[in-house]
């Protein structure tokens, strides 16, 4: 999601921002997590290059985004994202790996 909005590779890892989210099931949880990150970027002006999850269950997650203050000159703004949607949303584990498909309204 970050690389849709900015040039995420150019983000320096200077600060850590706590991020928490909850949802009624795993799919809703993923959308809530992404929505929370989107809020931090758009409203609070953060650019994240990496993320860390500390605790996770089927209905809650907490961790942090690692990055710096958003600077359109430095980070090369590409597009705004309106929302993470439930459209064709898939979250699941297969062969020991977790993968997800999320469609963003841009």
């Amino acid at each position, binding site marked *: 999601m970050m690389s849709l909005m900015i040039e995420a590779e150019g983000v320096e890892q200077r600060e850590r921002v706590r991020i928490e989210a909850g949802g009624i099931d795993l799919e809703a949880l993923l959308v809530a997590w992404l929505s929370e990150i989107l809020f931090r970027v*758009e*409203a*609070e002006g953060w650019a994240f290059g990496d993320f860390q999850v500390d605790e996770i269950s089927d209905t809650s997650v907490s961790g942090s985004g690692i990055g710096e203050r958003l600077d359109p000159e430095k980070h090369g703004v*590409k*597009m*705004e994202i309106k929302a993470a949607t439930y459209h064709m949303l898939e979250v699941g584990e297969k062969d020991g790996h977790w993968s997800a498909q999320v469609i963003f309204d841009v």
Partner: protein
Amino acid sequence: MAVSTRLREIDHFTWEIPMDAQAGMRVPGIIFADRQLLERAENDRALQQVMNVAHLPGIVKASFAMPDIHWGYGFPIGGVAATDLERGVVSPGGVGFDISCGVRLLKTSLVLADVHDRLDALMDEINRLIPKGLGAKGGRIILSRREMEGLLEKGTRELIARGIGWEEDLEVMEEEGSYPGADPSKVSDRAFERGKGQVGSLGSGNHFVEIQEVDEVYGSADQLGLFQGQVVIMIHSGSRGLGHQVCTDYLVVMGKSIARSGYELPDRQLAFAGNQSEEGRDYIAAMACGANFAMANREAMTHWVRDAFEKVFRSGARSLGMELLYDVSHNLAKPEEHQVNGNTVGLMVHRKGATRSFPGRRPEVPKRYAEAGQPVIIPGSMGSNSYVLVGTEEALAKSFGSTCHGAGRAMSRKAAKKQVRGAELVERMREKGILVRSGSISGLVEEAPEAYKDIHEIVEVCEGAGLSRKVARMRPLGVLKG
């Protein structure tokens, strides 16, 4: 593809998906389209969504689709659904993430010869004055929380009181710039935070400010104050992060309720709540705030466009004839009275990627348009024509007074990026005589004309189906994108 054998042709521009096409449908699907547009709609699963919408409790008459239909989140884009105001439901998916994304047209008394040599200067000035794109910085109107609440509750009037915009603009805005029942306490802190730095800013994606020339007029142009060769300005934008967050928030609230009730949704983006339930009322009150925010934003940008013209022409905007024609949404749900089986019924009419298209006699239409009909403003995609239409009696009878909103996408943003080069596109636009200013080149490429359906076909089908009538066609001279 399974749908096509079930589609019933009602007339040249109207198709029906019968109720038994899918278990759970409470009403049929009705699609206004010609064969070509219909095939396109089938290919992108939009018709599946038309059927899903027909599941909504309390839906009345049909799940409608306009000719510019294409797949969306829950509702297709170009979807219209009316639910009984007492017993039916409201669904944020039927409004969209961009609550009250809409469009307005500003008239002038100028013609091409007047602006031709000053187009660069005008575009530069508009580009300078209008904040746009990602990032909360650069907002020109900074409001305190209380002031924001005032804006959300009372609408555009709040900006006019601060000297931004004209009092007379209100008369030609839907709900006179103030959607009733707006309650800021139903808008989350998150939504306030997202919207705070974005008052009067232009969104990215397909939002734009465009200077245009009226290149063809049809009936009723006179009554709307439009003429051939006139320079006009179109502004297409919505409720920005505030609206997006309101939709996100209420999909969660309603999703939780529905999960508790055990009801099975065909699509999570179609979460709903009763129009008269607490959650339903809360959403409607929050949606109204989103609508007020969007309309106020378009008014602020109008103000700065007038400023830009004043600076370049060294003349007052009033003497340049810069009056507002109309401001109309294409992502909104409105409580309206309609005739159903001979009775007057209260309905919540969802129009997502669809525009209200009322005849002049409706009380919602400004008195000055009583004869012509409600103006319908159709933004074209970048580089292509836009239109002004008017609403009709037939639209009331056929689609609860609804028509298209523009040209739907024919190609995904990803596909457009693969096929179109940014610099080449800007050059192509320049060769057509169109100046481009943009916040983002990659965003620009996704908006290439080939990525969209043919607006002429869509407008013709709407007219053929009786949903609206052409009044004027415009061509772009200069475009500002977020």
